[in-house]
């Protein structure tokens, strides 16, 4: 009953979306306001409709309706209620429904904004948002229906279908297969929603960009309208990436957080273009330049979002055969190809309208440094995209399968990331239009000199890896330059406004949140870079088989193996849990319990590490193997991940910075002049 309701509502939503698209197109063509408004109402209606459908599925999930194939495949009776509910995004069909729900929510939120100043955008934003939604709804209805049920055909085999095939009877299995154990982790419960929020909210800037192109309104209005959307999208995408890394670190049991897996890269690629976009829109706002480029970036980001959604859940890129066999793969590629071609054609047809209003006057200006920043981000994107699709190309042309793994990505993108760090150190000191080489030299001189102390000190204390030294030096440059920016600004404010230094600092950031929020983000990135450099270059590992009471040494740490127990946990898994004690410099610092869970139903092992964290780094131990009977021994794999907590701490600073930059302005309603920086000029003026 609920399944029928959920499915019917989805079909109705699809019809409503199609109506909305048609009404918006007709209204825009004939300039009949009533049709446009009706299209908007249709868009607003999609959210409650998809909500109802998603609630039907959640109700089926939590009430063990195993006759529904999706429920059967992702839940089981022994799973706690909250896991059953969040199993909504534990499989492809439910994920697509969840995606559509978020898409409808964002489309409705965009529909509810005040449109009085950009009325002409409305029908086109409705069209883009609803086309995207309609595509996902059709995928669900035609190929990946989460409401499809299991039927026993007269011949005896079980088939999956929405409605009873002739002569078939409904099958209700006694229990479900349960959620993939890897996904039963708090990180995996919040990671997909964050990622999807990031994906979906990038659709809105794209919709406005397309609306601006279609209506030939080529000022930067669309960028100003969507600035906050973009920042929020970017924030969620960043959080999704970090949470995914944390989940991998806690659950996948290989000592790392980022394995350059195609699924990770799929989420990383829109982040790259999104970050490039966030920087280059500033050039358009301040200088009226790069209009084509910004359109191209937002188009790329949209296509990569769709590509990412497809890649993260389907796994069909793993081989040509898997791709050819899945119905959903060609549909996705068709949609991506069509939207890319159509957007590009639109951009080309408006090429001459988008001419820049200013010219670049100097190579050493903030805008030219932003150009280099964009070049680096896009080059990293090219490397990532190439690495993801190359195995398919190789298989198609030579029949040979290849793996493109971490060594490729580290080698190609490493220097580009270093280049980005260097830019982060220089660009904040440069000015729009032109920077006098001398003034830049004067500003950068002392941070540069002071930063050299870091690699020198490290070299003296025994760090000799040139790449790591370079990385730490760049981190020091960015930190010092960024802090000096805060310091200079605060001193100037104190001087002009007679404010005490802390107040001056607060007001400085408050008066130009975007700029200083951006600096805080840079500081977060630096902290993350320190964590990445530390754990990439200085990770140590060892493995050994110990009898009870024996010990193993790694770096300053000694670990003793105390005992091991095997027992059945209530949620159908066999747990083997070791007790170990960790000593640092002879002092006991922690008792750790690395374990291996074996899930009976899915026949899947899961390795959960024991971790002792400190600012210095993590002591990370995995239980690799053990003798089930007696206590002859257990095998442990141990990693030392130096400085890794800078990565997690840095990501918090990063999020804080994004919040500062995206926080709504009190003076938001001020006239949208080309340079809204009037508020920057101190009030005493």
């Amino acid at each position: 009953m609920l399944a029928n309701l959920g499915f019917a509502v989805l079909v109705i939503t699809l019809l409503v979306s199609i109506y909305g698209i048609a009404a918006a197109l007709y209204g825009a063509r004939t300039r009949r306001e009533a049709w446009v408004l009706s299209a908007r109402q249709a868009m607003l209606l999609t959210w409650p409709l998809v909500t109802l459908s998603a609630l039907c599925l959640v109700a089926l999930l939590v009430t063990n309706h195993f006759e529904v194939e999706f429920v059967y495949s992702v839940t089981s009776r022994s799973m706690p209620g909250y896991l059953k509910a969040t199993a909504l995004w534990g499989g492809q069909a439910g994920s697509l429904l969840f995606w559509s729900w978020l898409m409808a929510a964002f489309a409705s939120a965009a529909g509810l904004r005040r449109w009085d100043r950009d009325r002409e955008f409305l029908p086109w934003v409705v069209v883009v948002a609803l086309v995207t939604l309609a595509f996902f709804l059709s995928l669900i209805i035609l190929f990946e229906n989460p409401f499809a049920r299991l039927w026993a055909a007269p011949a005896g085999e079980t088939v999956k279908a929405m409605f009873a095939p002739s002569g078939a009877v409904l099958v209700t299995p006694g229990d479900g297969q349960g959620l993939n154990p890897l996904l039963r982790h708090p990180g995996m419960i919040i990671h997909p929603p964050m990622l999807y929020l990031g994906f979906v909210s990038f659709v809105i800037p794209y919709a406005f960009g397309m609306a601006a192109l279609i209506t030939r309104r080529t000022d930067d209005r669309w960028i100003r309208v969507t600035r906050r959307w973009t920042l929020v999208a970017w924030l969620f995408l960043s959080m999704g990436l970090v949470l995914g890394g944390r989940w991998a670190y806690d659950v996948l049991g290989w000592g790392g957080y980022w394995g350059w897996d195609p699924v990770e890269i799929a989420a990383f690629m829109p982040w790259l273009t999104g970050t490039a976009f966030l920087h280059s829109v500033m050039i358009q706002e301040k200088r009226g330049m790069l209009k084509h480029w910004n359109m191209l970036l937002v188009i790329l980001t949209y296509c990569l979002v769709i590509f990412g959604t497809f890649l993260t859940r389907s796994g069909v890129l793993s081989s040509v055969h898997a791709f050819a066999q899945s119905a959903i793969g060609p549909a996705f590629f068709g949609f991506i190809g069509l939207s890319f071609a159509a957007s590009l054609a639109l951009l080309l047809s408006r090429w001459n309208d988008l001419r820049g209003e200013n010219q670049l006057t100097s190579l050493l200006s903030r805008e030219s440094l932003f150009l280099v920043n964009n070049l680096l981000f896009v080059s990293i994107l090219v490397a990532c995209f190439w690495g993801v699709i190359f195995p398919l190309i190789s298989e198609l042309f030579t029949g040979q399968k290849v793996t493109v793994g971490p060594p490729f990505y580290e080698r190609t993108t490493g220097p580009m990331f270093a280049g980005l760090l260097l830019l982060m150190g220089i660009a904040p000191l440069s000015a729009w239009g032109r920077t006098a080489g001398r003034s830049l030299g004067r500003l950068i001189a002392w941070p540069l000199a002071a930063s050299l102390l870091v690699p020198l000190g490290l070299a003296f204390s025994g760090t000799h890896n040139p790449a790591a030294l370079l990385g730490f030096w760049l981190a020091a440059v960015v930190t010092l330059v960024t802090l000096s920016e805060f310091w200079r600004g605060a001193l100037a404010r104190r001087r002009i406004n007679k404010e005490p230094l802390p107040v001056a600092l607060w007001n400085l950031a408050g008066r130009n949140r975007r700029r200083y929020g951006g600096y805080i983000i840079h500081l977060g990135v630096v902290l993350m870079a320190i964590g990445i450099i530390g754990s990439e270059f200085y990770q140590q590992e060892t493995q050994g088989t110990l009898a009870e009471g024996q010990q193993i040494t790694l770096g300053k740490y000694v670990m003793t193996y105390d005992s091991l127990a095997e027992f059945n946990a209530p949620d159908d898994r066999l747990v083997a849990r070791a007790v170990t004690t960790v000593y640092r410099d002879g002092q006991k610092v922690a008792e750790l319990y690395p374990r291996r869970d074996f899930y009976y139903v899915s026949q899947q092992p899961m390795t959960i590490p024991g971790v002792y964290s400190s600012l210095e780094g993590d002591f990370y131990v995995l239980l690799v193997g053990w003798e089930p009977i007696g206590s002859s021994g257990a095998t442990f794999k141990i990693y030392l991940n130096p400085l890794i907590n800078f990565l997690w701490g840095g990501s918090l600073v990063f999020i804080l910075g994004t919040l500062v930059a995206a926080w709504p302005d009190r003076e938001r309603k001020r006239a949208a002049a080309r340079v809204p920086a009037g508020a920057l000029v101190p009030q005493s003026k």
Partner: protein
Amino acid sequence: MTHHRPSTLPRAALILFIVGIGLASVVYSPASPARAQEPTPSDDQVNLVAKQLYCPVCENVPLDVCPTQACVQWRQTIREKLTAGWSEQEIKNYFVEQYGARVLAAPPARGLSLLVYLLPPLAFVVGAYIVYRAVRTWRRVARPVASPPPTAEDDYTRRIEEELRRRE
């Protein structure tokens, strides 16, 4: 306002920077840590080889940390080969012969796979050239035009700078 001839220093620095990154992305590769040799192959020695291999079944999980039974057997094979005195490269070649190039973490740089390594640096260099050309064209167009009036933010920066100078 007169037009200042931009000094060649920043341009040279920018070009150097871009060429440097292009070169570095071709040349640079992280070194693997050296380990002491022991008479019998220790787990660490086995893992050092296994780390660089991927089994065809467990996608994207390096062999040294893969918990499946098949991967345990592969590690055992590596141990046997090491005991028999095989070098790291010989063992890797053996697995490539048995299972194809996909067992390697990255494809060998020959044939079509050479493209894997060439395209990203090439794309970067081409991109850099496009940016460079665009900037040059813009500047040539801009040359006769006077510099734009300073924006308010520049004004603010200038005031801060003035303020700082007064302090010195």
